[in-house]
């Protein structure tokens, strides 16, 4: 049970916290105190012992001085001399009397006085009993002969004393100083005892000893035999000691063994634990002991210890009580909460706790209540949901039941289908064999076809290549090897590409062909000294979508054709140039003669001849130009520069050039420009050439009247109409009009050679065709006139935009005056 452990924990904790320091401190304290006290007591005892020692010495000194004093007594000396020398009994008696009456009375502690002769016999004494005793073996006799000697006597009695202090001194002859004997004083130990106990000093008026001195203090002397010599006992008290008892204790041992003083705790003669200090008196072989029973010495400490212990016990009780109370205080609410959780766990979600401790535990209690509240809510909510879900489930189960039934039906149907499927399989198998047979047949047919095709291809003089989509050769013929000079080596498309690069990017053209699915025809490919024409066609398969599966590549060696063409081109350009120069010279010179030397041509015939030469040269130039144009047009070498032409502007320019000719022939040329017409697309120079041709023809075949030019908008085209009031063209000849060299006469000899080469209309037709229009004879009536027309396409917005920056209605074209007449 957790609760107990909390209390226990608290208990332990409190105890530890409260008591350990206290107790620890207390114990320490007490121990320290005890130690200190012991020290103090030891010190005090030692001091006391020292003091006592001093006192003892002083006392002994007094005894000794007494003895010395006695020993110097003349009467005693003389007496002794008498006794020794004369053995005078009288002397003895006198001496005894003297001793008794004069000497012994001086000191109350003097138990007796003896005078001993050199043999050791007691010759005089204060006590008759002592007379005649043999003292020869006694130390005090032996030592006393030499000087004053003090010793304790415990082993035999003198003068009825069990214990006495003997002080002896030598007796010498007054006169000679000769040793006569020894004087021995026997002192009672009473005074020594009193010294030890302090009474002597008190009696003597000495300052009383230490007022703190505890009553149980024992001060005594131990002799060299480890026997107690003197021990003052407090009056009235029971004594546990007797003089002469053995005192073989620690300090005694230490003094005799090491000659050292002791201050310690040990067992005394009576086996009682005492704290004591010792003083060694080595001269005498005595040990002074000062002892206090530890019980008494540490009584105060002991008492204090008891008090502490009592206090400690009290504290423990208090602490325990506090701990228990505290624990109860803590544990109480925890218990409440614990119970509450159990209640709630059992299902009573409405249970709430009430904790009013005013601390975190109260907060915990409140939180617990909140949680319980929330739990209750959500539980209630959950219950709802569960109810709903259960309803759904029931419905679903019903549906499932229904579905199950239909599934069973489906199963049955499926079984039927399987049966049918099996039947189908059989049929299919049969079909398959049939189809296979057909396939075999067809394959053979195809193989035959292929064989024929391949043979045809191989026989071509054109190079033939059939590639797949990856530019790999599927089929080719020997002509390719021949054209590219591969010989017997194996080659690939890559080899061809290498040969043709960098002048011609073969692979790029292949790619373009495949990508755009269009044929690519490239002439003028250079391979060394040869020219090649390469024609690429894509192989498109329209299976379900258009797919390029490869290419057909044809290669033609057009070197010869090219050479031919070039030589023809050269021929034409050179020829035309070469022909023109002398013709120009003829025309120019004759013209200049006519212009500048007219006065020298006064002869009409000469003038006419020069005129004829001039005119011939002009005609020849025309012929040359016609031939050149024709060949260029036929070969497709004429370039048409497409521009935007504003016919209303251009046509008057052309007409202007003819004004001279026409006015000479007294013919008019009119341009009827009624509506504004849109611009057209065409080559400006060629347009002028065509118009010139038509107007020229018009003027040529007209005797009276003139030529009229009009425009007509045909929607997509503008039609230029040139009408003359000339002789007209007979119907039969009309079909031959645009033919080469044909004039409007069918017979080759029936030609008007003065009227040009007959190439004009042919050239015009080719030109207009080249500009995207058409030329035709509109109408012709013999005797009335002829109308020719040609069309040019209207410029679209796109065209205008294209040529926006173009030369179109350009004025710099006038810088290039290639002539108003045909080029």
């Amino acid at each position, binding site marked *: 049970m957790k609760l107990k452990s909390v209390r226990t924990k608290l208990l332990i904790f409190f105890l530890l916290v409260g008591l350990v320091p206290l107790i620890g401190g207390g114990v320490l304290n007490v121990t320290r105190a005890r130690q200190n006290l012991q020290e103090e007591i030891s010190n005090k005892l030692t001091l006391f012992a020292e003091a006592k020692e001093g006192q003892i010495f002083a006392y002994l000194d007094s005894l000794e001085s007494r003895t010395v004093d006695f020993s110097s007594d003349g009467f005693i000396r003389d007496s002794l001399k008498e006794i020794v020398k004369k053995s005078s009994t009288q002397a003895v008696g006198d001496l005894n009397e003297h001793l008794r009456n004069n000497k012994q009375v001086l000191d109350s502690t003097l138990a007796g006085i003896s005078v001993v002769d050199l043999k050791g016999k007691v010759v005089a004494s204060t006590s008759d009993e002592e007379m005649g005793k043999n003292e020869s073996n006694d130390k005090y006799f032996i030592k006393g002969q030499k000087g004053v000697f003090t010793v304790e006597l415990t082993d035999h009695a003198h003068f009825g004393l069990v214990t006495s202090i003997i002080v002896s001194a030598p007796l010498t002859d007054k006169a000679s100083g000769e040793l006569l004997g020894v004087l021995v004083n026997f002192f009672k130990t009473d005074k020594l005892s009193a010294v030890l106990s302090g009474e002597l000093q008190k009696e003597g008026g000495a300052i009383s000893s230490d007022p703190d001195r505890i009553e149980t203090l024992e001060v005594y002397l131990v002799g060299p035999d480890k026997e107690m010599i003197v021990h003052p006992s407090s009056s009235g008290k029971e004594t546990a000691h007797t003089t002469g008892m053995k005192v073989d204790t620690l300090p005694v041992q230490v003094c005799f063994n090491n000659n050292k003083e002791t201050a310690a705790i040990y067992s005394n003669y009576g086996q009682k634990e005492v704290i004591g200090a010792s003083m060694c008196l080595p001269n005498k072989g005595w040990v002074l002991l000062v002892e206090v029973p530890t019980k008494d010495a540490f009584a105060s400490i002991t008492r204090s210890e008891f008090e502490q212990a009592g206090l400690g016990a009290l504290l423990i009780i208090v602490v325990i009580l506090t701990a228990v109370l505290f624990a109860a205080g803590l544990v109480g609410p925890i218990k409440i909460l614990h119970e509450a959780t159990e209640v709630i766990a059992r299902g009573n979600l409405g249970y709430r706790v009430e904790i009013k401790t005013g601390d975190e535990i109260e907060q915990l209690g409140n939180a617990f209540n909140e949680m319980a509240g929330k739990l209750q809510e959500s539980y209630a909510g959950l219950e709802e949901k569960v109810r709903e879900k259960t309803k759904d489930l029931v419905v679903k189960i019903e549906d499932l039941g229904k579905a199950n039934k239909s599934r069973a039906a489906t199963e049955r149907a499926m079984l039927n289908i399987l049966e049918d499927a099996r039947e189908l399989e059989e049929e299919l198998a049969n079909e398959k064999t049939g189809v296979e047979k057909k396939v075999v047949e067809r394959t053979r047919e195809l193989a035959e076809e292929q064989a024929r095709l391949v043979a045809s291809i191989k026989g071509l003089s054109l190079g033939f290549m059939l590639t797949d989509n990856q530019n790999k050769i599927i089929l080719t013929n020997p002509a390719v090897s021949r054209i590219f000079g591969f010989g017997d080596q194996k080659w690939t498309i890559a080899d061809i590409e290498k040969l043709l690069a960098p002048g011609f990017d073969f692979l790029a053209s292949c790619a373009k062909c495949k990508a755009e699915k269009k044929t690519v025809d490239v002439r003028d490919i250079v391979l060394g000294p040869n020219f090649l024409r390469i024609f690429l066609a894509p192989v498109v398969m329209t299976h379900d979508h258009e797919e390029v599966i490869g290419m057909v590549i044809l290669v033609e060696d057009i070197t010869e054709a090219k050479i031919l063409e070039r030589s023809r081109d050269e021929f034409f350009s050179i020829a035309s140039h070469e022909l023109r120069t002398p013709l*120009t010279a003829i025309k120019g010179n004759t013209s200049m003669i006519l*212009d500048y030397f007219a006065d020298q041509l006064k002869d009409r015939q000469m003038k006419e001849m020069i005129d004829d030469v001039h005119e011939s040269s002009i005609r020849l130039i025309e012929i040359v130009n016609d031939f050149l144009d024709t060949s260029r047009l036929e070969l497709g070498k004429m370039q048409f520069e497409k521009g935007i032409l504003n016919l209303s502007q251009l046509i008057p320019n052309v007409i202007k050039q003819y004004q001279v000719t026409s006015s000479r022939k007294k013919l008019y040329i009119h341009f009827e420009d009624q509506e504004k017409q849109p611009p057209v697309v065409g080559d400006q120079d060629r347009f002028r050439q065509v118009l010139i041709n038509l107007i020229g023809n018009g003027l040529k075949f007209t005797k009276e009247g003139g030529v009229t030019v009009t425009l007509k908008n045909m929607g997509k085209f503008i039609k230029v109409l040139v009408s003359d009031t000339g002789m007209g063209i007979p119907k039969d000849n009309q079909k031959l009009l645009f033919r080469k060299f044909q004039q409007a006469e069918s017979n080759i000899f029936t030609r008007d050679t003065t009227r040009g080469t007959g190439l004009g209309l042919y050239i015009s037709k080719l030109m207009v065709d080249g500009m995207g229009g058409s030329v035709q004879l509109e109408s012709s009536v013999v005797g009335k006139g002829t109308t020719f027309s040609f069309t040019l396409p209207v410029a679209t917005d796109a065209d205008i935009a294209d040529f926006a920056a173009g030369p179109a209605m350009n004025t710099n074209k006038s*810088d290039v005056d290639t002539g108003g007449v045909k080029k």
Partner: protein
Amino acid sequence: MAKILIVEDDPLMSRMYQKIFTFEGYEVEMAADGQEGLDKTRIGKPTLILLDIMMPKMNGLQVLEKLKADVQTKAIPVVMLTNLAGQQDAETALAKGAVKYIVKSEYEPKQVANMVKEILAGYTRDEVPKVG
């Protein structure tokens, strides 16, 4: 009167044009090839140059380039006088800085002279168009 330099290798042609410009009152200088034309231009500083294209050693277009590259000569108007009738050739020449391109065979000498007169009249007023 203005000086015309005619650069033409064909004597038939050079004699003809020499006559017409002389008749028209110009001072006429002749050069029979490109190099002579360049030299005479530098020395004589003609007012206008008539330049044939087809010439040996250095053709007219090359001469034109050199004339227009030389700061001393580039301001002099150059008229191409040739029998080459290609549009391309004309554009090339004009692009190189010629002010006009005349095809000999199409014009009477007098017409050529008139054109030159027009050009000279025009360029006394205006700047010679820069090489495009």
